């Protein structure tokens, strides 16, 4: 049986791994290649590197990071952050990334998803979506992408949650996968950093709406949260950053726990 994936996420600023709570109060904590090797040894099924470097002229630093990590660690690598063009994506793939995540740039220009999928194949294109619950949304796009559950109003936000958009999450997910996104990385901005569990309602409405794999992100704080995202949330993979990064939980602990509760995982 296909196993469920456990994915550590590493936020990288100027070539160094960082992570804070809800994207503020960032702490420097290490070398990407060393951390990648550690996670690999602990049984990580995949790694996500998110470039949060502010200046675009520091992009080459990230290319070096990907180059170095992919020469040492032989599991799938996804790279995201600041990807704005087919050329940006090509640079990351040539440096050794297997998949590239697009976020804000795809909201501004959805065509980017289609262009990248045509050039490199849908399996390379991950749509990262940051989602916030709202009470009074201004949703105007993608009417042809059907209705959304009325009790669940999820709005796409960008720029670390600071900028609201007119996109509703379920319709955006359908639209983006039609354009060629091969996987969705769904982050709840409400749950992120709170350690109270993933937003399983969000995850399950998205999983039900589309046919590509969903990676759950934002909110993991304890072992059962991972189990819940994979069962109640119907996610295919679970991602966490600070929890692993600060050693509060180990990747191996999460996998053992999931195995004990009957979820198929890869043993290392």
């Amino acid at each position, binding site marked *: 049986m296909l196993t469920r994936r456990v994915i550590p996420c590493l936020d990288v600023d100027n070539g160094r791994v960082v992570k804070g709570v809800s994207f503020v109060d960032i702490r420097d904590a290490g070398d990407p290649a060393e951390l990648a090797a550690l996670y690999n040894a602990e049984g990580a099924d995949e790694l996500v590197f998110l470039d949060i470097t502010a200046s675009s002229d520091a992009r080459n630093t990230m290319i070096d990071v990907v180059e170095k990590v992919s020469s040492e660690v032989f599991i799938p690598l996804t790279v995201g952050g600041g990807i704005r063009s087919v050329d940006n994506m090509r640079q990351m793939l040539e440096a050794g990334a297997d998949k590239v995540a697009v976020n804000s740039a795809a909201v501004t220009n959805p065509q980017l998803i289609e262009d990248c999928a045509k050039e490199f*194949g849908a399996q390379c294109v991950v749509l990262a979506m940051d989602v916030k619950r709202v009470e009074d949304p201004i949703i105007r796009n993608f009417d042809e992408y059907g209705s959304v559950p009325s009790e669940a109003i999820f709005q796409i936000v960008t720029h670390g949650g600071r900028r609201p958009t007119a996109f509703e999450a379920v319709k955006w997910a359908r639209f983006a996968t039609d354009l060629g996104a091969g996987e969705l990385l769904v982050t709840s901005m409400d749950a992120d950093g709170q350690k109270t569990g993933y937003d399983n309602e969000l995850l399950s409405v998205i999983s039900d709406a589309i046919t590509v794999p969903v990676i759950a992100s934002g909110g993991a704080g304890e072992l059962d949260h991972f189990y819940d995202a994979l069962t109640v949330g119907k996610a295919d993979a679970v991602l966490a950053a600070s929890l692993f990064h600060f050693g509060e939980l180990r990747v191996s602990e999460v996998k053992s726990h999931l195995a004990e509760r009957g979820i198929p995982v890869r043993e290392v």
Partner: protein
Amino acid sequence: MTENSKKPRIVVLNTRAANVHSVEKALRKVGADPIVTSDPAELETADAAVLPGVGASDAVMTALKNLDMLEPIKEFAASGKPLLCVCVGLQVLFESSEEGELPGLGLVDGNVQLIPNGMTDELGSAMKVPHMGWNEVQFTDDETERNPMFKGIPQGSHFYFVHSYRCVPDQQAEIAASTNYGVEICAAVARGNVVGTQFHPEKSGDVGLQIYKNFLDLASTTANN
């Protein structure tokens, strides 16, 4: 490899539609010194070759045709030297594919079919296509009977897959390994020196690197005979 032995010339065929860089890095990791090239003439002096693959089968076949690689690959396969084909690189060995219009290389009898959609797994989850992630692989033969490319790998090891189509060889005996995703999926094909994997050994951690190590050992034997 002994200290005096000749280092094998391993050629990684670059169709510009594949993850050649990952394959190159995995080969370097196990001690090989691969040559990544789009020049089919390099095959003439190669001890072993890899045909990687990512993307659509027609894109790979078109690239192979445009690069004048079709006949050189067939000749290389017939030479008895190790040829490792990965993912779509495996799929284009077959006669035809439901994915595309163009015929394959026809080095393995059989065809390539779309993985059926709409099944649910034991957890009640939808089984999505592509089949993406780590799945358990069962080798057809015991360690002692197995193709040397797959020596030293425990039964039931997990490998990383990303594909929407599955290979269906005419000869059951050519299925070296399989995995289950609602239907049986051929995970590896072995026809003597021609070996293909549906999974990506370069993305499958230690068990994947073991395959590249075995490949390097076979290439060294070829180089020193």
